[in-house]
Structure formats: C-alpha cells, structure tokens
C-alpha cells in the first residue's frame, strides 16, 4: 500500500517536472520576442542594430517613453483607442449574446442562411471593402467620428463574437435553461439569469478578444478618420515608420505601451478562466 503511494507520488512529481519544462519552453517561445522588443525600447536607435546584440546597452534610457508621454497628440491616440475599444467591446457583447442565444436555442425560418451570411461575409478581404465602405460611412455622416469607428469594428467583431458565443452556449446543456422556462420564466430570464452567468468565462474571453481586435485595427482606423485628434494607437505606431527611416525605439516603446491595456484587461479578468466558477452549475 505505502509502496504504491510512493510510486504514485513519484509519478506525480515526474509529471510535474514535465509540465514545468513544457511551460518554460512555451514561455520562451511566447515571450522572448516581446522581451527583445521591451529591451529595444530602452536603447538608442543605433544600439538596436549593433552586433553582437545585447539586452541592456550603455545607452539605456527611458527617453522613448518620455517622448511619447510628453506629446499630447500621442496621448490623445491612447484616449481615442480606449473610447473606441471599450464601446465596441460592451456593445458587441450585448448584441452578440442575444444573437448567439437565438442561434443556439431557437429554430426559425432562415436560420441557416442568416448564420451562413454572418459567418462568410467577414471573409471578404477588408482591403477591397475599403472603397465602397468609405463611401457609405461618408454618406451616413460618420466619417471622422467615434460612432463611425465603433460601428465599423462591431461589424468586424460581431461575426466572431456570435460564432464563439454560439459555441459556448452549445456546450451548456439545454436542460438547464429548459428547466427555468418550464417553470414559466421568459426567454430573457432564461438567458440572463441562467445562461449568461454560466458562460462568464466564454463572455470574458470573447470580450477580451473583441477589445483586442478593436484596439489593434489599423486600416479602417486610418481611412475613416481624418484629423489627428481622432487617430488611434496603431496609426500613431505607423506614423513612426517614416518614408526614409523608422524611429525604432519610440516604435517599440509605443507598441509596449499599446499592449498594456489588453494585458491589464486580461489579468483583471483572468480569474474567470480559473477553474470552479462554472463546472459546479454545469454538473447539475
């Protein structure tokens, strides 16, 4: 008896070593390039390309960051990105949850074609949509406005959010909400009292990704805005890639700063990814 326990413990600890090695290798793959980016943001432009490369150089400084924070125009890029991305995230989730509920729990005429259209139109290369799209946005008076960008991003994030939310809702046993409905509650109650709380991890992951798409989008942000006070962070980054030369360190610094909001969002919400929240309710 005690012998088997020791073998089991030994096996567990061997497994743990395996898991840790796997995690560390994965972390190098994922994080090393970003580490290099971070290191580069503290270098001077020449040091970024020196041979042999060094992680920390003599010219180590926060100059690149200071240059960004001291430029009100660049700070404004961040404000714009926040306004747009947060609005897109909230609105997309709200709209997508309802649509996904319809697809997951109802049968109705036109369900398949509608679903198919929603899924497939996003495959049209955005670059070709640019010109007709631009015309429509101008015609609607949304050119160079927040709603113009917000609605645009919703169009690009909704299909994704709906597909994913439908997927999550489909993993939840139907008996769960059927039971509530049997008790006489309406669809809205079933959705918001039962399904939504159970799918929080899914909603959070869709939300984070939606935010990220909106935060990082470049092509339409550039086309649909005109004035410097409406531009977003990706355009600010691109502006550092000049006709003749790049501001490498500022470019890296701005990218690092640009990545922080998504990271913070993820860290803040990551407890929802941790086991225990949903498994309890799904079990029943």
């Amino acid at each position, binding site marked *: 008896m005690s012998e088997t326990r020791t073998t089991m413990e030994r096996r567990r600890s061997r*497994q*743990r070593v395996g*898991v840790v090695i*796997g*995690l560390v290798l*994965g972390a190098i*793959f*994922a*994080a090393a390039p*970003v580490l290099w*980016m971070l290191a580069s943001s503290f270098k001077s432009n020449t040091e970024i390309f020196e041979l042999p*490369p060094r992680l920390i150089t003599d010219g180590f400084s926060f100059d690149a960051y200071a240059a960004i924070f001291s430029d009100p125009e660049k700070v404004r890029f961040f404000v714009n990105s926040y306004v747009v991305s947060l609005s897109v995230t909230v609105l997309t989730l709200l709209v997508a949850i309802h649509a996904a*509920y*319809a*697809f997951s729990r*109802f*049968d*109705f*005429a036109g369900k398949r074609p509608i679903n*198919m259209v*929603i*899924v497939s139109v996003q*495959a049209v*290369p955005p*670059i*070709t*949509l640019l010109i*007709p*799209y631009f015309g*429509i946005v101008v015609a609607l008076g949304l050119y160079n406005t927040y709603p113009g960008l917000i609605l645009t991003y919703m*169009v690009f994030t*909704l*299909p*994704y959010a709906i*597909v*994913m939310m439908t*997927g*999550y809702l489909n*993993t*939840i046993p139907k008996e769960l909400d059927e039971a509530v*409905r049997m008790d*006489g509650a*309406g*669809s*809205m*109650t079933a959705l918001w009292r039962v399904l939504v709380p159970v799918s929080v*991890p*899914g909603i959070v*992951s869709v939300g984070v*990704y939606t935010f990220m798409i909106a935060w*990082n989008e470049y092509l339409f942000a550039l086309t649909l805005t005109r004035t410097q006070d409406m531009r977003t*962070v990706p355009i600010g980054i691109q502006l550092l890639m000049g006709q003749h030369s790049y501001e490498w360190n500022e*470019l890296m610094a701005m990218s690092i700063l*640009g*990545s922080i909001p998504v990271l913070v969002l993820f860290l803040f919400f*990551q407890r929802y990814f*941790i*086991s*225990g929240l949903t*498994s309890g309710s799904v079990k029943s």
Partner: protein
Amino acid sequence: MQDVIVAPAPQAATPEPPRRRRPLSRTAEPYGFLAPTLALMFVLMIIPVVLVVGYSFMDNVILNATPELVGVDNFVTVLTDSVFLTATGNTLFFTVGSVAAHLVIGLCFAMLLNSPLIGNIPRAIFRALYILPWLFTAAVIAVLWRMLLAPNGVINYLLSTDVEWLASPALALGTVTFINIWAGYPFFMVSLLAGLQGVPAQLHEAATVDGASAWQRFWNVTIPQLRPIIISLTLLDLIWTSQQFALIWMTTGGGPVNVTEMLSTYTYKLAFSRYEFSLASTSAVLVLLMSMVLAFFYVRHQRAGD
C-alpha cells in the same frame, strides 16, 4: 439597461402548459434577438459586399466614370492568371499550416495551464506570458520579426548562422507561416482555456475510476467536450488567416519573387498598384465564395449538433 432586460416575466399568466404556446414565441422571438445584428450587418457589411460583387462584373470601376457590364470577363482573367493560382496555393499552405499549429499549440498550452500539478501563482504568471504575442498590432509584429530575423539579427546571432529567413525563396513561406503561428495561437489558447472550465470534473473522475489513462481521458472526455468550441475556432481562424494581409505585406510584400504571394496581397496589388479595382473585386468575390464553402459546412455542423 440590465434591469430592462431581466424584467421578470409575469408569473400569474401561466395556467396553460407552456408547450402549447412555444411554437408562437419561437417564430417571433429569435428575430428580435437578431435584429440589432442584422440591422448593423446589412448597412455596413452586406451593402459594401454587394457593391464589390457588382464591381466584379464591370469593366474598371472608379477609374471609369461610366463603367459597363462585362459579364464574367474579369473572372476569366483572374482565374487564368498564374499568379492567382500560385497565391491560392500559398494561401492554402499558409492557412492550413497556421490553423493546425494554432490548434495544437493552443490546446497544449491550455492543457498545461489547466494542469492541477502547478500552483496558482506560477499558473497566473505563465498565463500572462503566454498571451503576450496577442497584444500587438500586425504592423508591430511584422517589424519585430523583421528585426529578429534579419541576416544580422538576434536569431541568426544566437544560432551562429546568417540565414536569410525572409529573403530566401526556399524559406520565406515557412517563415511567414511561423510568424503567423506565433502571433495567433493565444486566440485558441484563451478560448480553449475558457472551454476547459466547462468540462465537468466528474466526467474525468468517472473515467479515472474506469481505469482510463490520461491520454484516453484527454481523447474521450476532454476533446468531445471541447468539440463545439474547437469547430468554431477553427472556422474563424481559417477565414481570418486566409485574409491575413498586414503581416505578410510588411514582412515580405509577397516576395521573394512570389513565394509568399497570398490572395490578400494579390488583391491589394490589383487594387492599389495596378488600379484594376474590378479585378481586385473579382479576386475578393472568389475569396468570398471559397469561405462560403467553409461557412456552409459550419452551418451544417451547427444543425447536426442540435
């Protein structure tokens, strides 16, 4: 807003068995739920797409003030262009390679992060590290990897080589695929991690009691549970990866020669380098048709799952 939505349904009015009135509610309700989506998608997506489809049947739009219908001429031109065929092949390689790797890596990392064998704090740290590639806009990813992979870059320095990762015709396609794999796996990882939370622990316990090995449990319990999510993810990733533009454009521009030419870069060049906007629209319509095939299978699967 939430107050409005969760307003409790009236309790008093349910004397009849609920089944009888369901058909009625089922016909009307889902359209209400879909209304905002449909309104938005119609104005800002369907109309532009229809316009693009229209362009594909005309001679050069935008350049010409009065474009004329030319039937399927544009389709013939594009489909017989050898570069289009090369681009289709490259896109296929790039897309399938990327998506398969995204799935495998995403699932591996999600399983590792979900492992009960590590503590919560290391888990949180690794989770944060693993999503890092996710945080950057495509232009930055392109610039970063160009820097890392340059002949005099860090990677060649560490490997003591001077390989032209992006500039060599033999390696370029593999290299851009690798970069895209790096950039895209966290999408799978995070979504699968969320999905893994939904796998009931009891199922695993029951399987363990039945004497299933870890591999069998993974294959017979975890995977079937994740199946709906995996299918949604794969579909989306196939569609997105097939239209990846910025990353390829800014790393190789479709070169060397045309070994990394994708449908997206091909379309771009038609539109903005040759000003053949109708041909670009035609190429876009062909991409749309290809993804409609994917969408068809997805929708069919959705129904089979019901």
